[in-house]
Each structure stands twice: as C-alpha cells, then as structure tokens.
C-alpha cells in the first residue's frame, strides 16, 4: 500500500512537470496554430538560468523560478516578434524555423554553460524529506506537485474565467471575427507566446529538481510534450493536465512494476489513445 502511494506521488510530481511543459505548447498550438518545436529548448534555457541563479549564485529558489521563467519568456518573445510573426498560417515554415532555433539555442547553451550535465538540485527550503505512511519522501517532489497544481488552477482561471482568456478562445474559434470586434489579436498572441515560454522556463527550473540539466534535454523534453499533447488533446489547460498526469503516473508505475518495459509505457498509452480518440482525450473533434 505505502509503495502504491509512493509510486503515485512520484507519478504525480513527474506528471506536474510534464503538464507544465506541455501546457504552453498546447495553448500556442491551439490558439495561434503555431508549432513551436523550440519549446523544449525554452525549457532547457529556463533550467540553465534557474540553475545559475539558484545554485551558482545561491539565490532563493523562488528567485530562481522567476529568473528561469523570465529568461525563457524573453527568448520566446524574441523568437515570436522577430521571426514567427511573419509565418502565421505557414506550418512547414514554422517547423523549419523553430527547429533552426533548436540547433542555435542548444549550441549557444553549450557555449555558455559548457557540456557537463548538472545534477538534479534541490532548493535549501525544500531540502530534506518528510514521513508518509512510514516511508520518507523528499519534500522537493511534494512541492513540485503543489506548485504545479497552483499553476494549473491559475492557468485554468486565466483561460476560462478572464477577459484575456475569452479573447484567446475567441481567436481560436474565429480569427477574422475576433479581429473585426476590435481586438488586437497580434498583441494577444504575443502575450500568449510570452506566457507559454515563461511556463516552459518555470517548468525547467522545477523539472531540474527531478531530471537535472544537460545539453540534449531540448529534444527529449519536446518529445514528452508532444506525447502529452497527443494524449490530452490540443489547445486546453485541462487536456494538458489530464495528459501530463496520466503519462506521469503510468510512467511511474511502469518503472516500478515492469522496469524493462518502462521506456515504452508512454508510447503504448499514446498508441492506444490514437486508436480510440485521435483528437486526444479532451481534444476538440476535428
């Protein structure tokens, strides 16, 4: 029983990181029709910046989170305003451009931070562990679950209960009509992209506690984000949350129960979802 709870908590904390990685990309895909393959690299940039502020300069963890988020957000904003803005409705070009940025940013990170991988680090506040049902469990993972959950609620509230969320959803449904109503969709899109990149950066700092940071991370994270999006469905916070938690929990139990097949459990989930509901569990029907 306690093993079950531990696995569940492992799955939930990993799933929260997955949710944060995928949510930004999913919203950008759904709202702006932009396929941003550089999303995983933004996560990596956030993780590196967070590592530098929180570990190298010993700043408080919260400042590390903010710095990582802002760092990734600014890089994302530059990509969107400088380049992607000219490529709306051109999916293939977006793919090529953002993958070009995967190469560029990966190499720049290698330049700045060097090739050696950073171990998973824990903030001083979150060091240590607490006892759950007779077993010790690291505080950092519990904090990840809580932070992820809080962010999920804020994002959901932004999406479903605020004016800006309504604008984004309106733009998703009918771009021309929304612009006709006098909404500056360009500015909305730029802020959506900025927020999405910020979330990727925050996810990077949180995820670095579980996964560490290394140079090949960008593509691995991109793959995880895509699987979560395929499972959960594109364009909504709820879809990313469901997909992320599902994949995280399945992965944790897969690792505990059949360690040899653990790599494939998430692919298996993805294939089953594709066969049953190609548009994802909570995706809109095409």
């Amino acid at each position, binding site marked *: 029983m306690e093993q079950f709870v531990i696995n569940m908590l492992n799955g939930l904390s990993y799933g929260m990181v997955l949710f944060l990685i995928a949510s930004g990309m999913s919203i950008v*895909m759904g709202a702006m*029709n932009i*396929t941003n393959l550089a999303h995983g690299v933004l996560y990596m940039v956030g993780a590196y910046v967070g590592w530098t502020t929180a570990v190298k300069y010993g700043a408080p963890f919260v400042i590390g989170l903010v710095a990582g988020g802002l760092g990734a957000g600014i890089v994302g904003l530059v990509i969107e305003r400088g*380049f992607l803005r*000219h*490529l709306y409705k*051109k*999916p*293939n*070009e977006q*793919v*090529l*451009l953002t*993958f*070009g*940025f*995967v*190469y*560029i940013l*990966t*190499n*720049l990170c290698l*330049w700045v931070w060097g090739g050696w991988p950073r171990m998973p680090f824990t903030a001083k506040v979150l060091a240590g562990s607490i006892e759950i049902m007779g077993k010790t469990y690291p505080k950092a993972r519990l904090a990840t679950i809580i932070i992820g959950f809080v962010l999920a609620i804020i994002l959901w509230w932004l999406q479903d209960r605020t004016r800006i969320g309504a604008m984004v959803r309106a733009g998703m449904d009918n771009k021309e009509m929304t612009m006709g109503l006098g909404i500056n969709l360009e500015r909305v899109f730029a802020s959506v992209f900025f927020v999405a990149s910020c979330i990727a950066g925050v996810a990077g700092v949180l995820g670095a506690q579980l996964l560490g940071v290394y140079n090949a991370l960008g*593509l691995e994270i*991109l*793959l995880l984000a*895509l*699987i979560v*999006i*395929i499972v959960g469905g*594109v364009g909504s916070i709820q879809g990313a949350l469901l997909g992320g938690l599902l994949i995280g929990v399945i992965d944790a139990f897969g690792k505990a129960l059949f360690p040899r097949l653990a*790599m*494939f459990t998430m*692919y298996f989930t*993805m*294939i089953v979802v*594709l*066969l049953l509901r*190609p*548009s994802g569990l909570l995706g809109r029907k*095409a």
Partner: protein
Amino acid sequence: MGAIDQEALARPRQEKWISVVAYGIAVIVVGILPAFLSSYIQGVITRFLIFALFSVGYNVVFGYLGLPSLGHAAYFGAGGYVIAVLKMHYDIDLFWVGAPLGILMATFIAAMFGILALRVSGIYFLLVTFALGQLLYSVAWNVKWLNTPGMQGIAGLSLPSFGTGGWTLDPISFYYLVLVITVICIYLIRKIANSPFGHALIGIREGEGRMRTLGYNTWLYKYFAFVISVIFSGVAGVLFGYYNYVISPTHLGVGTSFLPMCMCIIGGTGTLLGPVIGAALIIFVELFASIMTPERWPLTLGGLFVLTIMFAREGVGVYLAKLWNKMSHPYGSIKS
C-alpha cells in the same frame, strides 16, 4: 501564322541547347569527376546522393501529398539497422540479401505506423510521426541485441559484397552503385509524380473533401503514398548503412528525420529536383561548417534554416528554376 510558327520552333532549340549543357555539366560533376577526386570528397558526394534520394522520396508525402512527416528517419534507420544486424549477428554482407530485407523492413514498419499516423492530419500528423519515430529510437537505444557491446549503435559494417568471388567493392565503385540506384529511384518517383496517382495526391493536398466527393478513397491514396515514400527511405537507409560503416540510434531520431524536411523546404517543396538542390546545399554547408568551426556547426546550420525561411521562403530550388526559366526563354514569355 508564319511568324508564330517560327517563334515556336525557335524556342525548343534554345531550350535544348541549354539543357544539353546543363545535363552535360551534371554528368561530368557526378559521373566522371568523382573518379579523380580524393576519397574523402567521394564520400561526401556519396552522402549527398543518399540524402538526395531520401529527400526526393520524402517529398512524395511532404510535397505532393502535403503531409509533414517528422519520422522518416525511423524507416531510413530501419533499413540501415537491417544491414548492421545481418553483418553483426549473421556475418552476411551480401547485397542481394541485405538490400531487399532492409527495404522490406522499412516498408513493414511504415505499413503499421501509417495506420496510426493517418488517423490524424495536418500538423498533428507531424506530432504523431515524430513520436512514432522516437519509439524506434528508444527501442534501438535499449535493446541489447541492437547494440555492439560498449557503445550505442552497431559498428564494423563494410561495403556490400555481390557473391562474385574475388572481386570486392571499393569506395569509387560503391559511389557509382549509389549513383545508379539514386538515378533509377528519382526516375521512378518522377513517373509516380506524373501518373494519375501522383495527380490524385496533389488533388488531395489541395482539397481532400473534393477528392472524396469525386469518389476517390483518399485514405487509401494517402496510405499508399506514405508507404511508397518509405520504400525510397528504406533504399536510402540501406545504402547509408553500407556507406557509413556505423549505424546508431541517432540515425532513427528526429535530427535525421528533420534533414529531408529541410532539404525539401530549402530546395522547393513539391518539385521533383528541388530536394536534390536542398540536399546539396545542406550536405556541403554541413561539410564546410564542420571543417571551419567544428564546435559551432549546429549554429551555422540553424542560422542557415532561419535565413532561408526569412529570405528565400519558396526554396532556393524554386528560385533557381525561375532563373533557369528566364535563361531558356530569352524572349521573356514565361507561362509559370
């Protein structure tokens, strides 16, 4: 009437003259020149031909059908892995065994993955093919049987033998083998593109609903196009296995999948020879960048992608084709 006829007669002669020169240059550059170059440059040109074949085949799905696949390296690598496994576990390097098995393996995997990937369309097709490609990547990474002890991937491959005792391939005859296979395959793809099947694919790209209304089973067309395209990926993968001597999970992964897509976009999507030009550009930029700044070549390559997209969005190949049109129609009456 006389004047028009004369003009019509004059133009083909003009075109013929230029195309004879162009094909002559092409034959000299890829057909004769390599025999006199260093084996390193021969290797680079072989690599170029393999990737040209890979991306022209990829273009069937990407350009003609308009579905962005980001998983073609999985089938490319599968061809290479068949060669590698045959060599490592069974010590078979016979071309007549390896090539058909490699192509069959690629086709078989595509026949399964195609069913999954074609349940979605548009940009989601890209996501699904990407994830399926990474599935093969992680299989190759984790299964011991597919790795030489002590490393990721399989090393120690050799050029194929043909069962003709005593005579073995050297790099230059392998180069000509690749050249012949590539030319035959591109000719076949041209046939396919110009057939009613190829036109149906373009029809599906432009308006799937209309094609369905006209009575086409569009799903089946898409499925066949996908599998056909992968057959050529398999051919290229088999040749690449022989060429590279090492095959590793990277060759199944997204980095490799991305190359044909770039080559198509840079050269000109949906044109027959655009991808060849794109392949030439990328392979040679890769070569120069890796000589000049080995540490920073991804930066150069990424910069190239960004510049192409921002400034030559239609593709360098299309730009060259327009130039070509201008040269072969000096009167300036271009119909495109």
